[in-house]
């Protein structure tokens, strides 16, 4: 991981959309959670991503205005279906 990249973990259906379980994104394209999602929706496979998917930053759910800094663990979470 380069210093100015954000790693985005992908799970379940979202991993299938992108064909990847993690994607590195330049941090200037992902200054906030909302900007990151906009960026991801333009990537191949990203068109099926909802406009406001559930996102966790450092394992806590985060809203779309949450700023991202290098080293943040960002994860895209499809609707939960445990139990």
């Amino acid at each position, binding site marked *: 991981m380069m210093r100015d990249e954000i790693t985005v973990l992908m799970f379940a259906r979202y991993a299938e959309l992108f064909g990847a379980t993690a994607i590195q994104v330049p941090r200037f394209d992902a200054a906030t959670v909302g900007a990151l999602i906009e960026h991801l929706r333009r990537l191949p496979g990203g068109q099926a991503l909802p406009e406001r998917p559930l996102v966790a930053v450092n394992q806590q759910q985060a809203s779309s205005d949450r700023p991202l800094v290098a080293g943040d663990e960002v994860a895209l979470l*499809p*609707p939960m279906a445990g139990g």
Partner: protein
Amino acid sequence: MNRLTDSAIDWSELVEATAGPGRGAQALFLGTVRDHHAGRAVVGLEYSAYGAMAESTLEALIGEATARWPVAVEVRHRLGRLEVGDVAVAVAVAGGHRDEAFAACRFLIEELKKRVPIWKRERYADGTEAWVDPTAPTGRAPEPAR
């Protein structure tokens, strides 16, 4: 603490682990794989998780439950490939009285379903598969446009 497991859940061990001489009321909930869902015949399913966050969220839920009720709690969720009848999740609670045992047990399974990052892919009798989405009207996630 590993509350996620790839092997069969020993739920009777969880009941015994929560027991104690002051805890006269014990409640256990088991979620098992059903043979049907939303009108389709299910032959099995596969659970996956965001492991680290699932563990920390379960830890937080247990903290909330034990702060709210004087109970001892054990929770396990199975991951990987499960067949019909397999136990997917077990919540064991023990307390002094049945009000708190039932309330904490119910709280934990409800919150687990809402907040713990675990996903389920169902396998159907007709050979197809789909991701389960409890928030979708059909109970299943839309197929991606390919």
